[in-house]
């Protein structure tokens, strides 16, 4: 066994805990998880059955942590974990899984398969069998500070534009602000309107906030690729800035995986409880709404529906807030079938969008979203994740559908009444 392979097996072994062991002991091979996964439902290919994606983790568990498996290994009867085997699994673990968590909701014995896929990636990354696109993004995140290679100067330029266009100040590095607002590179480069929207809303509601010049990127490629050390380093940058600026709360932007990264994995990666809160922008906005600090006027009257980004809804717990907010500004809000915690993934999360090799299957799996949209004949799609948004726009174009995709935060900003 080569050292790299040994290390990969070791890394997988390290990932196994009581939940994993109970999940793997419980699987009855019923195949129901396949029916929950868009990569299977839209391709019909059984190899995309979710539980099969964790096969590397399962083999290690069986051979290392079960009596029977250890016996088999001793007598040379266990299926070996080889480099070729891991190479073959690369596509299943990365290209055809967005870690959307839908499979984990339907397994009759209760397996959280997504939890295990996340762990399987830790071993895959060590083995070196990872998509180039993700390696590039991760390298840029570590060296430059953004998976898309966006430097602060680029953000600064966008800030100047936004300040000019919107007429609101965008505070940077303000010590003692209540909120530290994080962004995703995708917002900075593709949707700077988000920054304008935040500036407008926070001015409207008198919220004290700031951006940081040292840590503005909220996404975490370390998690997507499955290298906890890198993920921890990226989280630590945000923690240090939040502590330096003495903020009370860090706001995760309109990005699903960024929320999971900083809200749910963050403290566990950093190895300590945070001294500040972490909230998604939708949570912050809904709090402002409850406090009566958001005054809106006018309603969108075309048929509008909401796409729940997986990491914000099903894996994040932010399900009611977007609905409360939409109802403030839309009079014909309709829910797609399976909306909410059972919503279908757009098909691009979990590193799939950074992995060009997965483009074909990403667009193929978009059929699921297409059908959901058609079922309610949506005229506008609102969401809260710029990654979902870019991919959905891409998918709609590929399927010749003409539905504008808008950001919830931006929509809300548009409907705010002017301050006296």
């Amino acid at each position, binding site marked *: 066994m080569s050292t790299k392979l040994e290390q990969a097996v070791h890394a997988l072994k390290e990932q196994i805990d009581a939940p994993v062991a*109970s999940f793997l*002991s419980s699987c009855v091979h019923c195949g129901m998880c396949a029916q929950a996964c868009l990569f299977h439902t839209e391709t019909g290919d059984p190899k995309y059955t979710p539980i099969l994606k964790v096969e590397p983790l399962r083999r290690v568990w069986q051979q290392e942590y079960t009596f029977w498996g250890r016996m088999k290994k001793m007598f040379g009867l266990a299926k070996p974990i080889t480099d070729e085997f891991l190479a073959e699994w690369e596509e299943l673990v990365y290209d055809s899984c967005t870690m959307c968590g839908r499979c984990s909701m339907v397994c009759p014995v209760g397996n959280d398969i997504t939890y295990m896929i996340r762990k399987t990636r830790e071993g895959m990354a060590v083995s070196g069998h990872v998509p180039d696109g993700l390696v590039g993004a991760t390298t840029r995140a570590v060296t430059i500070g953004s998976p898309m290679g966006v430097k602060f100067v680029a953000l600064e330029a966008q800030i100047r534009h936004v300040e000019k266009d919107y007429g609101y100040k965008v505070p940077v590095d303000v010590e003692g602000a209540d909120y530290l607002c994080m962004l995703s590179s995708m917002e900075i480069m593709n949707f700077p309107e988000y920054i304008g929207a935040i500036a407008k809303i926070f001015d409207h509601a008198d919220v004290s906030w700031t951006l940081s010049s040292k840590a503005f990127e909220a996404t975490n490629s370390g998690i997507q690729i499955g290298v906890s050390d890198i993920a921890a380093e990226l989280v630590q940058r945000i923690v240090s800035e939040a502590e330096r600026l003495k903020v009370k709360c860090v706001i995760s932007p309109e990005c699903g995986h960024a929320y999971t990264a900083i809200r749910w994995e963050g403290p566990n990666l950093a190895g300590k409880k945070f001294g500040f809160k972490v909230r998604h922008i939708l949570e912050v906005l809904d709090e402002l709404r409850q406090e009566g600090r958001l005054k809106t006027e006018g309603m969108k009257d075309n048929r509008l529906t909401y796409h729940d980004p997986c990491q914000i809804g099903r894996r994040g717990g932010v399900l009611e807030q977007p609905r409360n907010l939409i109802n403030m500004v839309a009079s014909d809000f309709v829910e797609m079938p399976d909306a909410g915690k059972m919503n279908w993934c757009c098909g691009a999360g979990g590193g799939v969008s950074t992995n060009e090799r997965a483009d074909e299957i990403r667009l193929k799996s978009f059929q699921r979203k297409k059908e959901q949209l058609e079922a309610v004949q949506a005229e506008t799609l609102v969401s809260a994740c710029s990654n979902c948004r870019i991919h959905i726009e891409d998918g709609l174009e590929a399927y010749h559908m003409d539905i504008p995709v808008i950001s919830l935060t931006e929509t809300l900003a548009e409907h705010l009444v002017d301050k006296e």
Partner: protein
Amino acid sequence: MTELEFLSWVRGPGFQIATVIFVFGIIVRLLEIFLLGRKANLAEANGSEMSGGMRAIFSRMAPESDTMKRSMFTIVAGYIFHIGLFIVIFLFAPHILFFSDVIGFSWGALPTPVVDMTSVITMITLAAVLLHRIKDPVMKYLTKTQDYLVWLVTFLPLLTGYLAFHRVGLPAPSLLALHILSVELLMVLFPFTKLMHAFTFVLSRWYNGAISGYKGVRS
């Protein structure tokens, strides 16, 4: 070995061996899981692990509507044969007699013809489940030898029990002995196969519900 000697072996030493493997095997398997432990979650909670976990143990019995549509056969057949097995194992008068000998108390049985019919329905359902496993592309792809083995050792006690009850083919003591032997086979294989899910599903559902519940999601 005569027919009666065979019967007394499966009833005596045979059963003892199977019970020891069954009980110790299950304890070892559960320890293998629990001893691994899990790390404390340092993220600020948005809900309760305990209530999320407890809820999931029960809520997974009722699949949500899209799953119901997509996996109708698996769900309905699964329900039938699990309930069927429960009735046949625990609500058949001679079985209750046997259990009460071991654990010291008994409970009411269902009328024998009902149990008899249930066993036939269960066998037919299991046959359909097997066919589905062979035919359905996903099931076929997922299936390993163990799945067939587990199917067989679940089916055999039903079949031998049915034959013994109706005295088909062989003299009664032999039929009974075969029935008991098939149950022992099931017991021996239980801890080493996916049959363990009969116990571990509670843990899995709890963990799943707890992980989600912590984040304020009902899974």
